[in-house]
């Protein structure tokens, strides 16, 4: 279980997180919605210890991320997969080596046969052909890069996977593939997920619970049904902006 308690983070004069409190139960997928620049990605990075909060506590399975030493943090990270917004694939290594680096157990990493088998499994899980393993990241499309990023994140069989904008920049077909994949990972492998996204449709289809982060705080939390029927004005404003196709103001007059 992940418990985020009163987390604050400031960059210069800009308070990005201003007292975030959030729980993620084992086995669930939580979608974190919110406008751009509200600190959703920063929150994910504080959970895995890539960014240190100024104040507050993050507890992952009883371990306090902010007070872990270097080695303990590395061990904890091996139980958390992180899917980066743009894939963050190592561009000097091919897909095979990228996914192999996700094998966080040293013995599994060193075992060439096991690595080949596991990389093939992970590619299959993300609906990519085995031949993709030989390609370099530069040869992949945006959707394939995202899927390889997910394959790398799950290669070490993590308990948690943190998805940072897994469908941003993708066409609807590829977005659906990624959404389906996140759901499958949860259903079939029991992976607990936190998904940062702007894609309201994907969040409603994929997540068990949704949280809305605005102004550096979680202002609403609930199941997709509770969210749909919420009277919270910030939830309404966010959802209606997404679903209503109001005419754009172009700034010119006829």
């Amino acid at each position, binding site marked *: 279980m992940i418990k985020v308690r009163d987390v604050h983070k400031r960059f210069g004069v800009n308070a990005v997180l201003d007292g975030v409190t959030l729980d993620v139960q084992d086995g669930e997928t939580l979608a974190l919605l919110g406008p751009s620049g509200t600190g959703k990605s920063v929150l994910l*990075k504080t959970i*895995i210890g*890539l960014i240190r909060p100024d104040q507050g506590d993050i507890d992952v399975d009883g371990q306090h991320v902010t007070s872990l030493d*270097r080695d303990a943090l*590395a*061990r*904890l*990270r*091996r139980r*958390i*997969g*992180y899917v*980066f*917004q*743009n894939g*963050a*694939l*190592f*561009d*000097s290594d091919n897909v095979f080596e990228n996914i192999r*680096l*996700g094998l*966080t157990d040293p013995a599994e990493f*060193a075992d060439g046969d096991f690595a080949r088998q596991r990389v093939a499994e992970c590619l299959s899980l993300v609906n990519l052909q085995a031949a993709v393993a030989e390609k370099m990241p530069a040869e992949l499309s945006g959707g394939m890069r995202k899927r390889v990023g997910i394959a*790398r994140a799950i290669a*070490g069989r993590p308990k948690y996977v943190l998805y940072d904008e897994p469908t941003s920049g993708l066409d609807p077909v590829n977005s659906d593939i990624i959404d389906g994949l996140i759901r499958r990972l949860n259903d079939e492998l029991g992976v607990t997920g936190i998904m940062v996204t702007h894609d309201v449709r994907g969040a409603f289809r994929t997540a068990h619970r949704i949280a809305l982060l605005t102004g550096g705080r979680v202002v609403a939390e609930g199941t997709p049904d509770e969210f749909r029927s919420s009277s919270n004005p910030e939830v309404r404003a966010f959802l209606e902006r997404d679903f209503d196709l109001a005419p754009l103001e172009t700034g010119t007059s006829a």
Partner: protein
Amino acid sequence: MAAALAQVQQRTGRFVLDGLAAVGRFAALIVEIGRGLAEPKVWLPRTFAEAHNIGIGSLFIVLLISAFAGGVTALQAGYQFTGNIPIYVVGAIVTQSIVLELGPVLVGLILAGRIGARYAAELGTMRVTEQIDALESLGRSPASHLLLPKVLACLLMIPVLVVFADVVALLSGWFAAKQALPITDQDFAYGARVFWRPFDAYYSIIKAAFFALTIGLVSCYYGYMTRFGAAGVGRSTTGAVVSSSVLILLLDLVLAKLLLVP
């Protein structure tokens, strides 16, 4: 007036604090790189791959420039030492100036540009595209995977390149002297031997090792600390080359004082 003075004080204070913070970050990075030594299975193969890349990749430019430097040194020595000065002095001047100074410093400056820029740009790009974050998120150490192999590759290959450069510059200097000056092989060899001390060769390699550490650490520091996208990568690359070059010249002076002047 008071406001202007306060502004100057504020800027000076900020400059000093920024400088101290940079020194602190550099020291912390060196400690981190040292910790990476605990994972030889990770850094050893990567070190050999890096060493192969920078060694083979730099060999041509190093040999080319050292060949020209050796030839020019011989011709200028011949031009300056005429009249009553015995011609064999050309052999001594060429040997001493190449081994003690030109070989290691020229190679150091060339490689500060070639390797320093490459490492800073590579690491900087990895930083701004979150590849370094990705490595950390997998519980892996950027020090043992990325930084240590680069520093060790520099330490392994740059002294070797300096030895190659010394030899090629000496040969080209000898050849140029014979073509342009009334000097025999015996005169040149006598001149080369008469002021020669075995320590001169060690000094050349010691300097090369210090320059190698400087290039490796400084370029890794700039690349690793990159922020703010493509412009940041550009700043890091320039910073790495300029800082490495200045530190090489500074070290050149310090090492000469410490090791050559009693």
